[in-house]
């Protein structure tokens, strides 16, 4: 035996350089994120004690790449899930893994994948770790690029549901896109750029017993539900036009109260842009387009498609206090956006120029005529008539560099908010928001930032509804970045005048080194909706310590 081992080792030696190129020659990369939280009761803001004392969410993505081949997996641990995350995430494991080949003409992924057809109105498997949404599909995803300018995608899979995959409910889809400038040689350098695409998605779900409320009849449920979409993307010089239209078959589900009406959605977008000026106008109409792989699933899980909100995604706290959540059952919207840069050396532009950004959006419900409840077509709706006002958002932002060290951004916003969007009754809220944000670059290694915000609202706090956003608000924030690595910030938000008077103070410290970032925070967090892309998650109030560590390697 002793003699055989050195012999074996010797025999293995020539294999190592080969393995080094073949298997070991690849790269292992990844990222790790750890978030934790300690929260104590505070009756004023509605925070409760955490029985575990410490809550934490951990996630690690490990990716192995070797040429066109890659394989990866994700470890997740929720011990226990942080406040606002669904408790069904409790536990740990490896919910996501895949192997993939990305060639020039062919890409194949087996295992978990994320995919999107067009803008996602009929299919978008995506994830957002901050929302706790992971709609990844597990199955097979193939992309073909047979000719220049032509892309064909085909997929089949089942969707992730917390720690499980609902294996009975299958999602299948096919999508094609043609880019004329890539396909037709004569159009390669044309000023007219044009792409056309079409997709079809079908879900299969076994039958189940669901009875109508009125007379207890069992619903005749479709086991296969299809949805299709066509789209175009054209531009000529400075002008651009995108359009997408989708339809969905009969899909009675809990989100539409089991009606048999077909779904429909239209998105239009027109832009004009040149250096220093741009304008765009978006319109959408969504009617009964909630598309899930399980008909009885309410909430944010198991969505097959994605209907984006077209309102602006604000970053300032008070402009974001009443975020808009997309109403997949029905809405109409119009959004306009204008950016203009006043040139340097002009009266208003000054030495450095001035940036002006205006955004306006109006979202309404549909104008519908009720025709029945469960088991019927539900309602009819008029294409061009609008229903109740859901949301209005106007904002004007002026940003100006005052000197080589000072930069000031001032924003005014006006919002009208209908509590019905969040499923509550009550009067419309009218809010005025003013923000001043100043950055002072003291020197190469020291930067100070100040932010002041005010919100005046006609909303009044009502103990029965207990919406802690009601009332007028004021806030201040100071942030100090030093040595290109550290930051410390302190802020306080105070609600007064018809509000549930409370202070929400916060202190944060952070350190960044290359792609590693550590952040510690202590303070009070208001309860509210965390919304990303029109998808929202309710986050309860918290009072205490939070920490976060992220690294990419």
């Amino acid at each position, binding site marked *: 035996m002793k003699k055989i*081992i050195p012999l074996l080792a010797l025999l293995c030696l020539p294999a190592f350089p080969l393995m080094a190129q073949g298997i070991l020659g690849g790269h292992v990369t990844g990222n790790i994120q750890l978030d934790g939280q300690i929260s104590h009761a505070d009756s004023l803001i509605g925070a409760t004690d955490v029985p575990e004392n410490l809550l934490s969410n951990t996630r690690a993505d490990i990716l192995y790449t070797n040429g066109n081949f890659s394989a990866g997996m994700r470890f997740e641990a929720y011990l226990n899930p942080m406040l606002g995350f669904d408790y069904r995430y409790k536990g740990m494991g490896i919910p996501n893994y895949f192997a993939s080949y990305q060639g020039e003409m062919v890409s194949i992924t087996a295992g978990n994948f*994320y995919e999107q057809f067009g803008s996602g109105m009929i299919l978008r498997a995506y994830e957002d770790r901050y929302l706790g949404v992971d709609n990844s599909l597990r199955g097979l995803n193939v992309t073909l690029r047979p000719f220049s300018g032509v892309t064909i995608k085909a997929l089949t899979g089942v969707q992730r549901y917390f720690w499980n995959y609902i294996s009975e409910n299958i999602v299948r889809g096919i999508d094609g896109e043609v*880019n004329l400038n890539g396909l037709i040689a004569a159009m390669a350098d044309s000023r007219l*750029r*044009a792409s056309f695409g079409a997709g079809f998605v079908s879900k299969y779900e076994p039958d189940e017993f669901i009875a109508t409320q009125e007379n207890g009849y069992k619903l005749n449920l479709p086991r296969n539900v299809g949805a299709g979409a066509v789209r175009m993307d054209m531009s000529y010089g400075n002008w651009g036009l995108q359009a997408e239209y989708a339809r969905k078959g009969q899909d009675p589900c809990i989100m539409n109260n089991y009606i048999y009406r077909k779904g429909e959605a239209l998105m239009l977008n027109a832009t004009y842009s*040149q250096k220093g000026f741009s304008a765009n106008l978006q319109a959408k109409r969504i009617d009964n387009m909630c598309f899930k792989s399980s008909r009885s699933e309410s909430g944010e899980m198991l969505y097959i498609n994605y209907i984006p909100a077209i309102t602006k995604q604000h*970053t300032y706290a008070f402009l974001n206090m009443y975020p808009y959540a997309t109403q997949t059952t029905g809405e109409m919207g119009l959004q306009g956006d204008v950016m203009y840069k006043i040139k340097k050396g002009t009266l208003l532009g000054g030495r450095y120029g001035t940036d002006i950004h205006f955004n306006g959006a109006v979202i309404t419900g549909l104008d519908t005529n009720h025709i029945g409840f469960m088991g019927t077509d539900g309602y009819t709706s008029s294409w061009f008539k609008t229903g109740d006002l859901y949301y209005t958002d106007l904002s004007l932002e002026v940003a100006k560099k005052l000197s080589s060290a000072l930069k000031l951004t001032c924003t005014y916003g006006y919002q009208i908010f209908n509590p019905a969007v969040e499923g509550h009754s009550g009067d419309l809220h009218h809010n005025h928001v003013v923000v001043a944000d100043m950055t002072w670059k003291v020197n190469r290694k020291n930067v100070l930032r100040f932010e002041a915000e005010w919100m005046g609202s006609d909303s009044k706090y009502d103990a029965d509804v207990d919406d802690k956003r009601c009332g007028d608000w004021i806030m201040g924030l100071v942030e100090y970045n030093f040595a290109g690595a550290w930051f410390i910030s302190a802020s306080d938000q105070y609600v007064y005048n018809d509000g549930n008077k409370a202070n929400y103070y916060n202190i944060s410290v952070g350190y960044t080194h290359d792609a590693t970032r550590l952040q510690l925070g202590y303070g009070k967090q208001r309860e509210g909706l965390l919304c990303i*892309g029109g998808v929202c998650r309710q986050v309860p109030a918290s009072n205490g310590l939070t920490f976060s560590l992220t690294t*990419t390697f």
Partner: protein
Amino acid sequence: MKRFFLTVISLTIGCFAMAQNATLPQNITLKALDGSTVQSSAIQNDGKPIIVNFWATWCKPCNRELNTIKELYEEWQEETGVKIVAISIDDARSASRVKPHVDGNGWEYEVYIDQNQDFKRAMNVVNPPHTFVINGRGEIVWQHASYVEGDEEELIEVVRRVAAESGN
């Protein structure tokens, strides 16, 4: 027996050590601003350094970073030959606003949209902004998460070093 394991272990470590820096992922599909699809292998700069920056229209620090660099870009290009490739991770909500946003801000960067976030995942980006420096051989030699005013000075220092190594 012990020697055998030591040999195997040291050979294995040796093989890993032979591995060079990770390179830019190839064949990931991105959208150009004119609506055409582009493979990530098209991100090239004739052997000169590349800055790959992940950003989004709604991300304040990203916009601060790209606006700050805008003022310096010409100077940087002349000095080091660097090219900036700005990858927008805007999703369906705001992807149609990327082109107007880029033009409105007067950015001269090469911009691609990574709407399905395949490139973001392949590069292990957690949050925007996230900046990578790629050397002339396509290897990722430096990366940095987040942006505060002044970070661009460290970035250009790295680019200068990379440019000097590749003899530009």
